[in-house]
């Protein structure tokens, strides 16, 4: 059987091999020793079912092997034969028989408006509805592990976007006392999910970043390992989707998106991914998706672009510095990410960082500041942006602490008022070689 170390190594060397292909037989083997398969209950809530469809694309093992050798998929709305009472009864029976042992997979966001009547998984025989909200609370507190698959379950996603008509919240906002493993992505890549599931079965909860994402997948920015990174450095920018060059100017959110798409690619067969297909990353694994990542077709706006440049290269420095200092690089990255996004993405909001994490982050901030100093940058603040907002920002707390802050309304979304920048054809500023883009005057500053 694999050791934990070997496992992580496998996960990180994603591009060369099919993660799940190597892992899952091992998982089956591990389970075989104990003579039982892991029970999995998969709840579909307010979702497009895209994460299940993505899961169905897992390559090796395929779904057939998984449900035969590795897991007992006792409840899955799209696949299961049972319907009606039979299905619901089976769901509750399984949960009580396997209480504390089953793995709960939640797909979709949880509508909470009007006590959750906007989403139901079914009805009891006596006519009482089981709302998504009830189901998450009931099955979430009895599970051994809770894995949120996809951005909706992890962070809210498109249906919780402004103005959030159904009052939807991510799973970890509902299950406050339960460790929720977030595997975001719109949809979640089959490997991200199957790898996380395997880790949970074999070794328990994987190491997570500040957003509850396993760092074995959600560690480096898209920008860091982007095959078009050199185009960015050389200022070769695509002018429209399908054009040759770096996609930054048509709206790529790679610099502020942290996941391994560039090396893993899609789907399980590792064929392609948005940037290889000459379209831009829209940041779908990020907590702020989609509000903080849109307009999709406008490049990261309202910022001092040297700040962005600083940020993208700084991320690397911090990570290195962090590692040198014995600080987990991912935390530094996440921290910086949160901060950078606060400057870059007007109105983005981090929704679920608790006090404990917050103080950890503040601790990390100090440590990384030292790391930075050692690696030559003056301070995170200096590097992460010289915009006006940053001067007002009293630290991490200003960003993470404002829990009650409303989601941005449509008017406050990343503003495209200076809409001349919107058309890809019109963006034609010739960049100096070492990117040093003239600061665009944001509508705020005009005021």
């Amino acid at each position, binding site marked *: 059987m694999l050791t934990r170390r070997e496992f992580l190594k496998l996960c990180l060397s994603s591009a060369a091999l099919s993660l799940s292909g190597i892992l899952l037989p091992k998982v089956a083997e591990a389970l075989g020793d104990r003579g039982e398969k892991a029970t999995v209950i998969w709840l579909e809530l307010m979702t497009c079912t895209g994460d299940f469809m993505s899961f169905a694309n897992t*390559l090796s093992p395929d779904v057939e092997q998984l449900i035969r050798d590795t897991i007992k998929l006792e409840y899955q709305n799209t696949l299961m034969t049972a*319907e009606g009472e039979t299905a619901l009864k089976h769901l509750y029976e399984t949960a009580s028989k396997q209480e504390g042992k089953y793995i709960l997979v939640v797909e979709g966001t949880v509508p909470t408006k009007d006590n959750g009547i906007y989403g139901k*998984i079914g009805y009891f025989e006596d006519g009482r509805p089981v709302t998504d909200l009830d189901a998450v609370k009931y099955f979430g507190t009895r599970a051994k592990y809770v894995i949120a698959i996809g951005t909706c379950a992890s962070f809210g996603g498109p249906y919780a976007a402004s*103005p959030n008509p159904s009052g939807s919240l991510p799973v970890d906002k509902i299950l406050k006392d339960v460790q929720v493993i977030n595997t975001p992505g*719109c949809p979640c890549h089959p490997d991200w999910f199957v790898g996380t599931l395997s880790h949970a079965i074999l070794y328990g909860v994987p190491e997570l970043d500040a957003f509850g994402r396993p760092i074995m997948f959600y560690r480096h920015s898209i920008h860091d390992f982007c095959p078009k990174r050199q185009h960015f450095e050389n200022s070769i920018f695509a002018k429209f989707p*399908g054009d040759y060059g770096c996609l930054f100017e048509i709206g790529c959110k790679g610099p502020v998106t942290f996941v391994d798409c560039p090396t893993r690619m899609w789907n399980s067969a590792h*064929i392609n991914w948005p940037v290889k297909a000459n379209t831009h990353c829209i940041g779908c694994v990020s907590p702020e998706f989609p509000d903080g990542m849109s307009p999709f*077709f406008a490049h990261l706006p309202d910022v001092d672009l040297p700040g962005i440049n600083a940020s993208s290269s700084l991320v690397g420095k911090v990570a290195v510095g962090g590692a040198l200092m014995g600080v987990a690089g991912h935390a530094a990255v996440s921290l910086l990410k949160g901060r950078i996004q606060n400057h870059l993405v007007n109105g983005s909001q981090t929704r679920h960082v608790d006090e404990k994490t917050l103080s950890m982050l503040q601790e990390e901030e100090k440590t990384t500041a030292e790391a930075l100093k050692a690696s030559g940058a003056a301070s995170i603040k200096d590097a992460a942006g010289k915009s006006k907002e940053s001067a007002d920002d009293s630290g991490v707390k200003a960003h993470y602490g404002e829990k009650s802050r409303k989601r941005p309304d449509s008017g406050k979304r990343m503003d495209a008022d200076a809409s001349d920048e*919107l058309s890809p054809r019109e963006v034609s500023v010739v960049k100096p070689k070492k990117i040093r883009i003239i600061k665009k005057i944001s509508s705020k500053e005009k005021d």
Partner: protein
Amino acid sequence: MPVKIISPITRINGFWRLDAKIENHRIVDAFSGGIFFRGLEKILLGRDPRDAVYLTERICGICSTAHALASSHAMEDALRIMPPRNGIIIRNLIFGADLLQNHIRHFYFLTVPDYVKGPDRPPFTPGYNVDFRLSKDTSSQIYENYMESIHISRAAHDMVTIFGAKIPHNHGILPGGASVPPDGDNVRMFLSIIKRVKDFINSKMIRDAELIAEAYSDYFEIGAGHRNLMSFGMFSHPDKSGEFYFRPGVMIGGRPEELDRKAISEHVKYSWYDDAPPLAPEEGLTEPDAKKPGAYSWVKAPRYKGLPMEMGPLARLVIRGDYPEAYGTMHRILARVYEAKKVAELMEEWVMELEIGKPVFAPYEMPSDFEGAGMVEAMRGCLGHWFRANGRRISHYQIITPSAWACSPRDNNGIRGPIEEALVGTPVEDFDQPVEVGRVARSFDPCLACAVHAIDARGMQKDIYIGT
């Protein structure tokens, strides 16, 4: 009246509520209600019109490419632009591959368990145990193909990825065309996979469907419904602007008609919205009223010239002349597998029509105010996006999905929606195991994740009221 509640209905994409009144082992009336409010049309307001292509995809994980296509057509209609020839072909290839994935998964994952007894382990257990008519050997053969279909449908999704970057929610279909230029590398991969998928459809899927159809021949008659068919036209012709490989058209009571794209309206008398006369989608309102008396659905009732319409593979093939005029549950299932065969054959030809070195995308300028409509075929029927933009912001967006047509409630004239109508008259042998209801309803390939636009029908629940 004794009431029996069965909920949820599984094996559809999404959730809805179906109330069926059953008398003397026969359904005498049915009510189809979407009970989920998601509000995507409201979410779209105020956003950059170009974002709609990626956001509306996220309505549905199984037919995301169809929404991307509809949204792109709407933008192109508004801006009066035409994608290059290569762009149209590549979009057809992406959508075709997703359609094959949908048809294969619909047949094996969603349909087969209604007719064939599966292996004795989850997720195939528990389940009903009535009316399984195929022999043990045949059943296990079909489930062997079920398992193979997992690989084949995944491969179909890999085809989408070749030109679409990823799936679900591809990036390669967007206003202005496509994004991946064809070359020897991606073309050879595509050709290899399409051949594999086609072989599976021809040698396994069609045979399995015909085996089921033979054993359940009474289902050719059951679930006929309103007998009105409609198609918006599928797969744009790259050389003939406005023409399609699967032509648009309408059949009302067996009489073929040209499609009038302006004859669509939405009724809301039985839906939880403020009352209004039937409105065209360009004007459609979405003001929810959850307490409206008499209403039972979040789905509006779309109508063509005031009539409920059936759509999907059967409608497309009948209108195209590839299937005799027929109505009924098993016809829908057979038409779906035959259409998969046809599409796979066409796709092989289209790949060879790609012109290496020619553009795939036409850049465009965005004016301040514009409006457009995108009317395309999704896997399960007619999909329309209508939008208006002011000051480069979306000020109006209405989507009518095929499942909204199929799962619609009664309209202002009290006429039942297509699935409601198809259920009436369906026999139900065993009150405790009403397998027949799911067979009829699933033959429409309802995708409730799509069914309500501004709203979304979810909750996946069926109440069966059994009375005497």
